């Protein structure tokens, strides 16, 4: 017997948590002397009322879908991958190498190649922490954080010393050749008469992210591997009993997680900047944690949560454009969302559970 209906668990509770987060965010906005209503209107106008706004919202959402899925897959194996940031950074390198050194005839082939490069490099960067966790019991939370720092240093080295064209100021690689340029939403959806998504960075990778959601759903709930990952995540002792090797699952789950996190580099590096830059990840790896949490580690939930966070990002940019609200406000809002949807989940859940049980008693 469940304590409450499923819809309450996956819709009602997150919505209430979000409202709480919004309420406290409003207090913060009030405290710094701005109007929450105005701010909210600006965000909605800028992020959702124009096609270009959507173009940005979905661009960010693409990143968050990948990192959110990455965190979710690891979570199913009860592994806390805080290293999405570093994995995506290194994956960018994979994308850059593929794009720079292989002459691609057409973007459709290039995106496949770049995806392989991104996934491979991302997975590789997750491999060592995974192995250390599985074999030596080194806490994966700490090692993945350390690997974020190490990734930044490595990427910096590669960009400053190896990939930077001579004379360029930017610690960035050369522009990728034209054969690798991905069609943006503007290219895809604009007509002669009306330009849609003008200048927005959203591109075909978005559909790749949607595909990744489907892939993860199949993987987790329809394959043997997914069955084993979830089983291991629920009970390590039971997994051992069933002949599921903890080492193998830990490593595989982290490889998949790293590969997914890495895939976001296709969006940022190939789709947006079209060259490898230092700071392409911009914290998306961490946002993935919030996204996975809000999405209850389910691909559909991750997809919706990613769009919500994409909206927050784009809305935040609009705020920064037209008001004096510092950009850190968005960080605070993120924190509140994580706090209320994740850590303080029971604060909302328990009263609601009680409510449902009481209601059921009365009906019975």
């Amino acid at each position, binding site marked *: 017997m469940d304590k409450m209906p499923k819809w309450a668990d996956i819709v009602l509770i997150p919505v209430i948590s979000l409202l709480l987060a919004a309420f406290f965010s409003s207090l913060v906005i009030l405290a*710094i002397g701005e109007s929450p209503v105005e701010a909210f209107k600006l965000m909605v106008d800028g992020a959702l009322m124009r096609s270009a706004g959507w173009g940005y919202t979905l661009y960010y959402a693409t990143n968050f879908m990948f990192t959110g899925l990455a965190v979710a897959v690891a979570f199913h194996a009860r592994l806390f991958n805080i290293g999405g940031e570093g994995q995506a950074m290194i994956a960018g390198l994979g994308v850059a190498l593929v794009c720079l050194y292989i002459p691609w005839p057409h973007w459709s082939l290039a995106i496949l190649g770049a995806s392989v490069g991104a996934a491979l490099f991302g997975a590789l960067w997750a491999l060592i922490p995974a192995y250390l966790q599985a074999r030596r019991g*080194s806490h994966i939370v700490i*090692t993945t954080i*350390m690997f974020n*720092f190490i990734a930044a240093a490595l990427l910096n080295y590669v960009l400053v010393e190896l990939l930077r064209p001579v004379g360029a100021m930017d610690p960035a690689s050369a522009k990728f050749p034209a054969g690798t340029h991905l069609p943006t939403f503007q290219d895809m959806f604009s007509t002669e008469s009306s330009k849609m998504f003008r200048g927005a960075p959203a591109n075909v990778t978005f559909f790749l992210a949607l595909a990744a959601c489907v892939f993860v759903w199949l993987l987790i709930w329809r394959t043997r591997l997914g069955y084993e990952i979830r089983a291991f995540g629920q009970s390590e002792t039971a997994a051992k009993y069933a002949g599921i090797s903890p080492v193998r699952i830990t490593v595989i789950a982290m490889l998949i997680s790293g590969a997914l996190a890495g895939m976001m580099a296709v969006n940022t590096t190939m789709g947006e900047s079209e060259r490898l830059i230092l700071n392409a990840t911009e914290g998306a790896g*961490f946002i993935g944690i919030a996204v996975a949490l809000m999405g209850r580690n389910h691909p559909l939930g991750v997809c919706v949560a990613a769009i919500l966070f994409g909206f927050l990002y784009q809305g935040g940019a609009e705020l920064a454009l037209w008001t004096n609200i510092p950009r850190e406000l968005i960080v605070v809002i993120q924190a509140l969302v994580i*706090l209320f949807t994740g*850590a303080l989940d029971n604060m909302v859940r328990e009263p609601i559970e009680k409510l449902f049980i009481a209601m059921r008693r009365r009906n019975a």
Partner: protein
Amino acid sequence: MEFLDIVQLLDTSIRLGTPLLFACLAGLFSERSGVVDIGLEGKMLIAAFFSAAAAFYTGNAWLGLLAGIAASMVLAVIHGLASITFRGNQLISGVAINFLAAGMTVLVAQSWFKQGGRTPPLTGNGRFGNVELPFAIGPTEAEAAGRPLSQMIGEAGPIQQLYSELISGHSILVYLGVLAVVATWWILFRTRFGLRLRAVGENPAAVDTAGVSVIQLRYAAVLICGVLCGLAGAYMATSLQAGFVKDMTAGRGFIALAALIFAKWRPVYAMWACLLFGFFQALETRPDLIEAVIGMKVQIQLLGALPYILTVVILAGFIGKAIPPKASAEPYIKER
């Protein structure tokens, strides 16, 4: 490499190790009680800001310290609510707290000082000065002699160098850090509170059925953690530095956690572990010495990544299996 080089390197290690030490002891109290805290970083950061802000307004570093501790404790209470009262996921609560601190400090700093998320520089009593121990060569002696301090120390004998450079001349908070180690050890292993604290991190049900409140114990531990993080942050902003800049803790809270694992959750080991990690960071400031020892130039990027690489190596290789308190990260749930 000369003797003085080593002394100086160790001197830097102590300075850089002290914030790690406070944070590490903070984590120790929290984890010994069964509450994992990856929000040390955030608590340090918010303490750094509020201590600097208060010290700026009052011109008194001690008042700054109090404000920093208070701010850190507010976040500690939030973590307590999430992980003790509402039995939520402690890692996630920690992540949220880190974000919250990163955002709030800059937001508030901007709203108060309009200097882009930093406080104005602290001067005079707004900072903790350095304590000169008796018989040590310090700035006073240098001024009297009218010569640079570094020269005078350079000419002194090795014992005097050790004493003046390494032992003397630190902020009072550094000495407080050493004291905190002793106090932690004593509280943990010699008092009733310590016994209960250790027990609640191993088996909260045992404590509960022995008639002691698990919730109160854990809150106490989390609050102590807040106080110590407050010290760590205040030390950084009002002693190591003269003011707050955004993100100034720069991952030290995480290094402290690694040190805690390395120290196997023991106070005295924690001190050595933090000194070691402080030493790694100190090495980074002396590429010349590394070059002299290994005989070749080290890439700056490698140098920068060194503390993190060494942390991983140590976690992976040198400690064997570190067994955390059994109930850590587990909320105490009686009724499912």
